[in-house]
C-alpha cells in the first residue's frame, strides 16, 4: 500500500543547529495494517507523518503509494488518497460552519467544488445516521455551529468527516492527546470501530502506550529516526506494557529526556 524508500531528512542543513533525523529510512505499510507508533519527543514520529502527507519535503528517497511515486506531489493533492486527523480538534472542522455544512463540505471531497448547491437536504438523514454512532447527541444539533462544540465532540466529528469518503490511508496524529482520559477512551473506541467497519489502513502516532498496545495489529517504536521496535500480529499480542516502558526509559536516560 505505502512504501518509504531510503528517506533522508536533515533539519537546519548547513547551520549550527543541523540535525540529521532520517538516514536511509525504510517503511512498508501493507493494506489493512493498523500501525501504532510510539516514541519520545524528537524521535521522528511526527516528521514521518509529515513526510507521508507531504507537509515537509524529503532530502532524498521515495514515497510510493499503491506503487505510484508521490514524492513530489503537493500536500493538498495527496489528501485525495490520505485522510488525516490532528491532535488539535480545531484543525479538523470549520468553527463558523454548522455540523451539517461541515459534513456536506467533507462529503464532496474528491469531487470538484463548483456551482451546485453545497448542502443537499436529502442527505441529512444519512448524516444523522453517521452522527448517531457517536452517541453524543450531535444528530439533534446538526444546525449548531461547530465552534460551540467541545474538543471531544469536535474530534469525534473530525473522525466522521475524514472517513466519510474513501481513502487509501488514515493518518492519526496523536488524535487523542488533547482530550481528557475519558473522552480519549471514547474517541479511541470510535476510531477502532470506524477502522474495522471500513477496513481502513491506518497509521496512528500516540503517546498513550496503553492505546498503542491494545489497538492495532502492528506496533513500532521510533528513536532518533529509526524504528527500534517493529512487531506485528501474534508477536505484537505478546508484547507487555512493562517491556515497552522499560525500553522507553532506557532511551530517555540515553538522550537525557
Amino acid at each position: 500500500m505505502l512504501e518509504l524508500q531510503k528517506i533522508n531528512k536533515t533539519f537546519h542543513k548547513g547551520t549550527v543547529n543541523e540535525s540529521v533525523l532520517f538516514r536511509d529510512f525504510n517503511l512498508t505499510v501493507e493494506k489493512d495494517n493498523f500501525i501504532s507508533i510510539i516514541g519520545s519527543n524528537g524521535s521522528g514520529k511526527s516528521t514521518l507523518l509529515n513526510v507521508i502527507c507531504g507537509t515537509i519535503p524529503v532530502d532524498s528517497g521515495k514515497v510510493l503509494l499503491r506503487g505510484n511515486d508521490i514524492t513530489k506531489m503537493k500536500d493538498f493533492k495527496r489528501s485525495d488518497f490520505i485522510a488525516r486527523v490532528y491532535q488539535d480538534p480545531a484543525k479538523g472542522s470549520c468553527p463558523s460552519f454548522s455540523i451539517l455544512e461541515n459534513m456536506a463540505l467533507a462529503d464532496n471531497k474528491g469531487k470538484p467544488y463548483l456551482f451546485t448547491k453545497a448542502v443537499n437536504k436529502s442527505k441529512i438523514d444519512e448524516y444523522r445516521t453517521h452522527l448517531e454512532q457517536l452517541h453524543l447527541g450531535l444528530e439533534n444539533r446538526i444546525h449548531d455551529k461547530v465552534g460551540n462544540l467541545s474538543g471531544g465532540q469536535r474530534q469525534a466529528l473530525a473522525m466522521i468527516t475524514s472517513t466519510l469518503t474513501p481513502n487509501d490511508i488514515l493518518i492519526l496524529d496523536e488524535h487523542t492527546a488533547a482530550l481528557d482520559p475519558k473522552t480519549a477512551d471514547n474517541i479511541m473506541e470510535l476510531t477502532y470501530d470506524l477502522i474495522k467497519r471500513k477496513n481502513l489502513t491506518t497509521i496512528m502516532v500516540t503517546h498513550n502506550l496503553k492505546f498503542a498496545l491494545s489497538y492495532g495489529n502492528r506496533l513500532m517504536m521510533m528513536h532518533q529516526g529509526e524504528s527500534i521496535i517493529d512487531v506485528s500480529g501474534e508477536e505484537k499480542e505478546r508484547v507487555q506494557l512493562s517491556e515497552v516502558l522499560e525500553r522507553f526509559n532506557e532511551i530517555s536516560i540515553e538522550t537525557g529526556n
Partner: protein
Amino acid sequence: METILSLLKTILEQGFIYGILALGIYITYEILDYPDLSVDGTFPLGAAITVAFILNGVDPWIAIIISFLGGALAGLATGIFHVVFGIKDLLSGILTMTALYSINLKIAGRANVPITNETRIFNSGITEYIPESLANYKTLIIIFICVIIIKKLLDLYLKTKSGLLLRATGDNPGMVTLLAKNHGYMKIIGLMICNGLAAVGGSILAQQQRYFDSTMGTGMLVMGLASVIIGRSIFKKSKFMKATTMVLIGSVIYKTCLAVAIYYGVNPNDLKLLMTILFLIVLISNDAIGKGGFKKYVRASKN
C-alpha cells in the same frame, strides 16, 4: 422637508453604490481575513473602463460587466503576488493599487473625464418603464435594482460548493488542504470577486456622477471596511438577517453619518479626514464594547 427628502435620496444612492464595494470587502476582509488595498485602485478602474467604453458607444450595462472582469483581473494580479510569489497581503494590494493608478489614467485618457451627454444606465433602457411620478427617484430605483441583483447573486454563490469552500478557506485553511484543494487558489478567487465588485461599484458611481476622476479611489478600503464593521456589529444578534444585508445597511448608515456632518457645515475637503475618524470611532468602540468578533482587527494592529 424638501431638503431632507433630497438628502435622504442622496444618502441612499451613495450608500447602495458604495455598498457594492462593501460587499466585495466583506468577502476579502471578513470571510478571508485579508485586508485588500487593491480596491483603492479597482474602484476607479471600474469608473475608467466605464467612461472609456461608454464614450465609444458601448451599452452602459455591458460596460458594467466589462468593469467587473477588469476588476477581477486586477484581483487575480494581487492574488498571484500574494499566493504565488509569497508577498505579504497588504503589500500585494498596495502594488496593484499603485500600478492601477497609471493604468486607470491610460484607460480613461486623462485625470478627469465627463460623460454628461452619453448613454448611461440612468437615462436609457429600463428607465423608460419607470412611471413619470417616480421620475425624481429614477436613479435611486436603478441603483437599488443593481444592488439587489448583485446581493442575491452573491448570496447564491456563497451557498454553492465553491462558496462553501471559499468560506472554509478563511475559517480553517488547513481544512481545505485536508479536502484535497489548494487554499491559495480559493484566496485568489475571493480576491477576484472582491475586486470585480469594487469595479462594479466604481462603474455605477461614474455613471451616476457622470464623470471619472483618477483620485476617486482614495480611502475606499477604509470606507468599505467601516461599512462592513458597522453593519455586522449592529446586527450581529440578528439570526435571520444575511451578512450581505447587514453590510449594505452598514454602508447606508456610514453614508448617513458623513452626510449629516456635511449638512452641519463640515468642509468637503475634510471628508477623508472625517472618514478616517469615523472608522477609528467604529473600530475602537467595537473593541471597547468587547463583544464583537471584530476585536481581532484592533488587536492585530497593536501587535
